[in-house]
């Protein structure tokens, strides 16, 4: 492996940010920290996006690898050791300078530091630790730092790093042990889950400590996250969701990210994906992920062994509602928070506003629209003071055909960007062909 030392900072930045771009986690949320007089930086719990790249993803952190040299040979990764790419590494000094100078100009919200494995897991983790220490203690940087824990590194190193970072993450990459064995021969399930457990325990212990001593240093205050690749191996959506649910419940993860597989290497064990990365599938997984984290859904409710994949044409919530028409329509002026949350077209914000507003008098459809409810989806499932918006049959086929027309354009936009197709009278103009025919026959 030839390490390029003489590159300029710009060339290094180009190589090492290019290598880090497949990591999805670029959030800066989860921790509120006031600035300290005379020093640089604070953190906002809502997270702040500073720019958006051409692919529409936010840029909130300076997302770089410390080095793109790696001893592992993961099939999907551009930095696998058998690939012939230019290898380079930052020095801790360079990383600190870049972070501070970008931060002062308000280009970024903080640093996201990941790394290929140089020599050994411990060696790499120590390099990361030294960098963070320099940034926090020498440069007095108080902004957001997201750092990768290297699987297989010494627990002491991980703990020390955790006290300097805001968020730590370890990528699960593939949801099943088989997939991991096939595509990432250097990694194993236990190697990934052990540090994850350690960080979880550290966070819990730290929480108790903070309760007693307010001045205690905080350990990974913004929680930990992980990432799974979608579509590199044969797992179905149900398996992905079950793994994600288990991670949320057993490891207290803040976020699980899903990354549509982009083939960067040619390998016989990788899928070909002629239609581009599975973006629609990734989109559905994120929708379901939100349903689990904020809407009180369980993975088992959305999917099952018999129906292991998400409906391509309908979003998971509409799909669920159509299979449970027995609980609809719901009375907006009386239903409780969790029932309202399950109505398609209503989100956390609009439901909270409904609850606050209806205390002072009944709501009608006009008020719901102002509050932010998406009526074109919700109108099939709600009543206001006992009335529906239009006379609607609560019948699966009828509602499906009406919901489909609206969703189909979105599906098309996500699934096949940049291509063209024949216009279809029935699909695009939302002519309910099937229902009409049936009506005639009856």
């Amino acid at each position, binding site marked *: 492996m030839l390490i390029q030392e003489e590159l300029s900072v710009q060339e290094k930045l180009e190589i090492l940010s290019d290598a880090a771009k*497949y990591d999805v986690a670029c959030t800066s949320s989860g921790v509120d920290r006031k600035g300290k007089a005379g020093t*640089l930086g604070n953190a906002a719990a809502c997270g702040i996006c500073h720019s958006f790249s051409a*692919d529409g993803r936010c840029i909130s952190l300076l997302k770089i690898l410390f080095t793109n040299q790696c001893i592992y040979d993961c099939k999907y990764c551009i930095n696998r050791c058998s690939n012939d790419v230019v290898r380079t590494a930052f020095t801790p000094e360079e990383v600190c300078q870049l972070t501070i100078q970008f931060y*002062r*100009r308000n280009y970024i919200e903080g640093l996201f530091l990941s790394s290929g494995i140089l020599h050994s897991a411990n060696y790499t983790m120590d390099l990361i630790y030294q960098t963070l220490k320099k940034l926090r203690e020498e440069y007095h940087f108080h902004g957001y730092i997201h750092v990768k824990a290297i699987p297989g590194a010494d627990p002491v190193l991980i703990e020390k790093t955790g006290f300097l970072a805001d968020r730590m993450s370890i990528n699960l990459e593939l949801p099943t042990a088989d997939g991991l064995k096939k595509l990432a021969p250097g990694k194993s399930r236990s190697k990934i889950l052990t540090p994850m457990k350690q960080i979880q325990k550290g966070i819990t212990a730290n929480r108790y400590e903070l309760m007693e001593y307010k001045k205690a240093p905080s350990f990974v205050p913004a929680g930990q996250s992980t990432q799974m690749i979608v579509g590199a191996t044969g797992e179905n959506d149900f398996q992905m969701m079950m793994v994600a649910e288990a991670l949320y419940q057993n490891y207290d993860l803040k976020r699980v990210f899903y990354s549509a597989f982009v083939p960067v290497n040619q390998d016989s064990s990788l899928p070909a994906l002629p239609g581009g990365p599975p973006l629609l599938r990734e989109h559905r997984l994120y929708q379901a992920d939100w349903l689990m984290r904020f809407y009180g859904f369980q993975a088992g409710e959305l999917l099952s062994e018999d129906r292991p994949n998400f409906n391509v044409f309908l979003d998971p919530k509409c799909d669920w509602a159509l299979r449970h028409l027995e609980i609809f329509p719901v009375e907006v002026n009386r239903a409780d928070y969790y029932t309202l949350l399950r109505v398609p077209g209503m989100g956390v914000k609009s439901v909270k506003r409904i609850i606050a*507003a209806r205390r002072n008098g009944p709501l009608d459809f006009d*008020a719901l629209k102002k509050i932010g409810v998406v009526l074109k989806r919700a109108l099939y499932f709600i009543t206001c003071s006992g009335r529906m918006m239009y006379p609607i049959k609560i019948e699966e086929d009828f509602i499906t055909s009406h919901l489909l027309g609206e969703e189909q354009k979105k599906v098309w936009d996500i699934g096949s*960007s940049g291509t063209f197709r024949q216009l279809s009278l029935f699909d695009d103009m939302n002519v309910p062909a099937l229902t009409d025919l049936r009506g005639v026959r009856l």
Partner: protein
Amino acid sequence: MKTVYLCENSVEGILSGVYAAWTSRKGHANVKLGLIGDEDTMELFCQYEEVPVNAGHADKVVRAIREKISEEAYIVVYKAALSKERDRGDKIYRFLIYGFHLGAKVVHMLQVPEVFEIFQMCRNIDNETHLLTGFVRFVEMEGDLLVSRIGPKNDVLVLLAPHFMDRLSGENWVIYDENRKKAVMHPALRPWFLVDLISSEWEERMKKASDEDEYEALFQCFRKSISIKERTNPVCQRNHMPLRYRAYMPEFSHGLKDS
């Protein structure tokens, strides 16, 4: 006959207008609030009256809102007064009628059109402020001075300043609002203040400094290499970062779109 009270375009000015209209005892239906310098067509059968800014009157209104409605309502009214909405004065007046009648619960009553208007104005200004906390770009000039230029629709400077004061407390920085020709100045380790800026001389200096800044080039290169070609999605990008913000960002100096 209807009376239109023309108030000055500032939070204090609008609140003075509210005081004048309310205490005129002409009845809520017979008064209206307008802004001085607004190019609205004048109404027939109306009498126009200019209200001078009166800090004492404005203060009385503020105290009444805080005591009789709620602290939250005061924040809402303050933000609405900074809004881009042209008849914000009158909307605030109509909101306050309900506010003094109903008390603290008024801010949640979105089914009332007058409340909803105010809610919408606040939402708009909050969203713009939040986006700008990310989209403000500083250019480093000689003498460690960070300067930034923005062109917001709402008057967000006062809402932006506390965020940057907390974040960049040890830096000298200036944020200049191009549309309203005023700026927030922050000397290191001292509180910020508002000033009116009309001279355009420093704009050229800022451009020159921006050309020389090496980190700007680095950030441009970072932005380019971080995007995944297979996922290119300009519509999504535009939804999150509307074009109107990009004119003030150095990474789009070559054009408003990523090629």
